[in-house]
């Protein structure tokens, strides 16, 4: 049986990817609120997903506050779909 993608097989990274599969883009505050995670941990996991090319991260300013916008990439969509397919085979769905 195929192995689950280790990069996605983590609670917070999977949560981030699941959210970004459902929206066009989300900012850091929204992701933090929906995943109920700490800012430090979320930031680390976003960097890991971004380095893998699964999400794109755009840093900018909103008024005089910094704003980080995340969106899923084509590679991210493919990886997530593959993850779900493997998950289904594990769970016999």
């Amino acid at each position, binding site marked *: 049986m195929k192995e*689950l993608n280790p990069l996605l*097989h*983590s*609670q*917070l*990274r*999977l*949560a981030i990817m*699941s*959210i970004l599969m*459902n*929206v*066009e*883009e*989300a*900012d850091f*505050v*929204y992701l933090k*609120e*929906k*995943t*109920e*995670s700490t800012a430090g*941990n979320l930031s*680390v*996991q976003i960097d890991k997903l971004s380095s893998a090319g699964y999400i794109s991260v755009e840093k900018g300013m*909103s*008024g005089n506050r910094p*704003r980080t916008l995340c969106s899923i990439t084509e590679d991210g969509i493919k990886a997530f779909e593959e993850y*779900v397919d493997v*998950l289904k085979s*594990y*769970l016999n769905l």
Partner: protein
Amino acid sequence: MEDKKLTEKESLEVITSMIARTKARYLGSGNILLMWGYLAVFSSILVWILLAATRQNVWNWLWFAIPVIGMPLTSIMARREKRTDGVVTYSDKITSHLWSIFGVSEIVLTLICLGFSLIGGIKCWTAMIVYTIIAAPFAEIAQGLIVKEKSLTWGGIVGLAIGMVLVCCVTGKIPLLANWFMPLFILFWVVMMIVPGHIINHKAKKG
């Protein structure tokens, strides 16, 4: 939530829980609708009063106050809403593009009408009214169906019905006299923008 390894069952739970959380998104505010609605209604009343009081057609240029004020305000308000929400969904993107296409087409039509008027001396401003009262309800009905908001869908349907009556009047060469056209035009904006705007804001307040 932490960076911990999951069982397969837990993975599935994370995915379904995140999908549910992103679905339970608040509808947004009706402030942009209200801004357009009140702007159009106040401009109509102002033009109506000035035309009736002075009998000078020059006051018709005041119609341009609607896009000149409304378009930049929409841009500012939309940016602020996006900042507050922190998220853009597919339906947000579609509805935003839908209204942008409508806005751009209105600008193009204005330029065409100006061209006809200035170069050819042909007055075809009625085309603006006809286009607005048909295209705007279609955009609103589509938005209502996409975001599943009945007040928008029904506002658009009533607006379209008013629009169709006015189109028949124009093609049937019935003069659009201010004493009946203006109240109907104001009603058009009230049902299309003001009523749905207040309903959406009320829903947003209720949470």
